[in-house]
């Protein structure tokens, strides 16, 4: 162990270590017992659970570890919960999918765990290098996962698109980071904030803001950096799409918040304006483009773009309330989006792809439970009470109103109305159309049942009693703000 490093540093990264270890075990098991899917799933889930438990060990803590490269605070914990939960749900819904598609579970779960690992570093990193390496770990995993259906040209294409554009945007992001480093001489977020405080921001920093914004905008699929998203979402294996749209997005938002709120408060006015435009463009284009989609995954892709737009409101606002409401929204988004994708996964059977809107036709007759759950997810995505999506929207828009971004709130509100049009189209297909195929009713395996159960539980419970989520989000946002506040004091 090198000097200056203590065991404590490794203690603080216990969740990550557990995750890494678990991933290695999964990889080994994949070689040793390649066809034992259930075991692999069990080990992977166990890893996640262990990780979750170890994350909760540090609840309430607000320290930096690993020589100031990682923060162990409520903000990180919140995002770690989110990404771990989304990874878990993704795995649960993957189990039947992998069977239908005949995919190798070992590598798949390994990659998911590694992606999760990357996300966790994105959530807790407080240094550009940590954040960057976490981002890449996640991204590379996803490049592979997107192309996991090798015989499927769509999956290939999705992988190519995601990969090329991801690499391209990585270049842009890194260029921005290099400019920041050049201007401040450090990669530590705290250091950057200190270096920038008390001077008028130079144009180089603004340039860096734009470039980093573009790079992060790519990851969260903000318009106009979103164009990969629909194609990739459509082509990638459905559970991967789900994970991409939730886990990757959440982690990217964590990183985005870390960079902009913690490192660049000096140019807050500039990036706030940038994200204002991005938010408006993203939600509007996302929603409008979703209106006429006939492919369910593609529609959900646009919907997820639109949701990124809503989430950006929290960034624009930039206040503690804004961040908190954004976290709340991410929390509920996790359940509803994954739930919706879980239904799409469940539609996939050996003979049916099930991701076209018309495949949902008459779903109500085939499987009332699935139709009902999908209804709840759609309503939640549209922000109709008593689902969690409503509570999320209320707080997000409320934060905007509170901070005086009334027009942003109005645009968001109008957008959420537009969005209901296509969410309701899904409902129309399920409930008011005739059977697409008079197939047998949908069968949920145990894993899928658990996944859907968790998703629906989250969607409904947080819709009716969101107190828990609110508390956690507020605490998390508090630590993020507190960090930058201490910077300001120094």
């Amino acid at each position, binding site marked *: 162990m090198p000097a200056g490093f203590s065991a404590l540093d490794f203690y603080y990264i216990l969740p990550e270590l557990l995750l890494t270890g678990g991933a290695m075990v999964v990889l080994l098991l994949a070689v040793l017992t390649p066809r034992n899917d259930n075991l692999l799933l069990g080990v992977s889930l166990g890893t996640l659970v262990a990780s979750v438990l170890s994350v909760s060990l540090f609840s309430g803590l607000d320290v930096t570890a690993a020589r100031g490269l990682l923060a162990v605070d409520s903000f990180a914990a919140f995002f770690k919960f989110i990404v771990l939960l989304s990874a878990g749900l993704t795995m649960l819904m993957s189990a039947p999918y992998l069977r239908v598609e005949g995919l190798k579970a070992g590598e798949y779960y390994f990659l998911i765990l590694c992606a999760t690992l990357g996300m966790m570093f994105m959530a807790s990193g407080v240094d*550009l*290098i940590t954040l*960057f*390496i976490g981002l*890449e770990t996640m991204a*590379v995993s996803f*490049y*592979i996962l997107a*192309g996991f259906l*090798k*015989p*499927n*040209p*769509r999956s*290939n*294409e*999705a*992988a*190519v*698109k995601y*990969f*090329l554009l991801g*690499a*391209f945007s*990585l*270049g842009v992001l*890194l*260029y921005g*980071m*290099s*400019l920041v*480093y*050049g201007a401040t*001489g*450090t*990669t530590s977020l705290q250091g950057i904030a200190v270096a920038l405080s008390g001077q008028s921001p130079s144009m180089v920093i603004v340039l860096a803001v734009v470039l980093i914004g573009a790079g992060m905008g790519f990851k969260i699929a903000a318009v106009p950096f979103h164009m990969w998203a*629909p*194609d990739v979402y*459509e*082509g990638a294996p459905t559970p991967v799409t789900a994970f991409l749209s939730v886990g990757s997005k959440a982690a990217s938002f964590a990183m985005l918040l870390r960079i902009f709120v913690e490192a660049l408060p000096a140019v807050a006015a500039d990036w706030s304006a940038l994200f204002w435009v991005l938010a408006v463009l993203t939600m509007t284009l996302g929603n409008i483009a979703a209106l006429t989609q006939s492919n369910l995954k593609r529609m959900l892709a646009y919907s997820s773009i639109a949701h990124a737009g809503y989430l950006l409101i929290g960034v624009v606002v930039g206040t503690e309330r804004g961040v908190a409401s954004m976290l709340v929204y991410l929390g509920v988004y996790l359940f509803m989006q994954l739930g919706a994708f879980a239904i799409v996964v469940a539609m996939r059977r050996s003979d049916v792809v099930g991701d076209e809107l018309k495949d949902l036709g008459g779903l109500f007759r085939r499987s009332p439970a699935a139709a009902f759950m999908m209804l709840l997810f759609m309503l939640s995505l549209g922000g109709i009470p008593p689902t969690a999506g409503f509570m999320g929207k209320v707080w997000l828009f409320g934060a905007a109103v509170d901070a005086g971004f009334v027009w942003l709130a109005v645009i968001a509100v109008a957008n959420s109305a537009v969005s209901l049009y296509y969410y309701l189209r899904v409902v129309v297909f399920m409930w008011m159309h005739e059977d697409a195929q008079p197939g047998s009713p949908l069968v949920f395996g145990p894993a899928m049942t658990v996944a859907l159960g968790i998703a629906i539980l989250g969607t409904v419970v947080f819709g009716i009693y969101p107190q828990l989520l609110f508390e956690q989000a507020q605490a998390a946002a508090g630590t993020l703000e507190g960090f930058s506040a201490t910077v300001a004091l120094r």
Partner: protein
Amino acid sequence: MMEITPAHYTILSAALFSVGLIGVLVRRNIIIIFMAIELMLNAVNINLVAYANEVENLVGQVFVVFVIAVAAAEAAVGLGIILALFRNKETVNIDEMNVMRS
């Protein structure tokens, strides 16, 4: 003009970055596009190294190490993807990859 400042390196880097950009945007061979992306990453590296030199700490260089590592990882994965794609479509022309659109 004769004194080489970090600005010179930065502008070189910007130019290299732009060449990379152009390569990404205009070529149709995926492999070449990928190489153009490597050029962009190199531009970043030049930047980082130049700044590290200027601010007299090595963080920039550490950063470059990671960038190179990432570039290597991406190259491996990217080329794997290209191979998988090629098996299916018998092409590396990027314009033929638009099964999914609108």
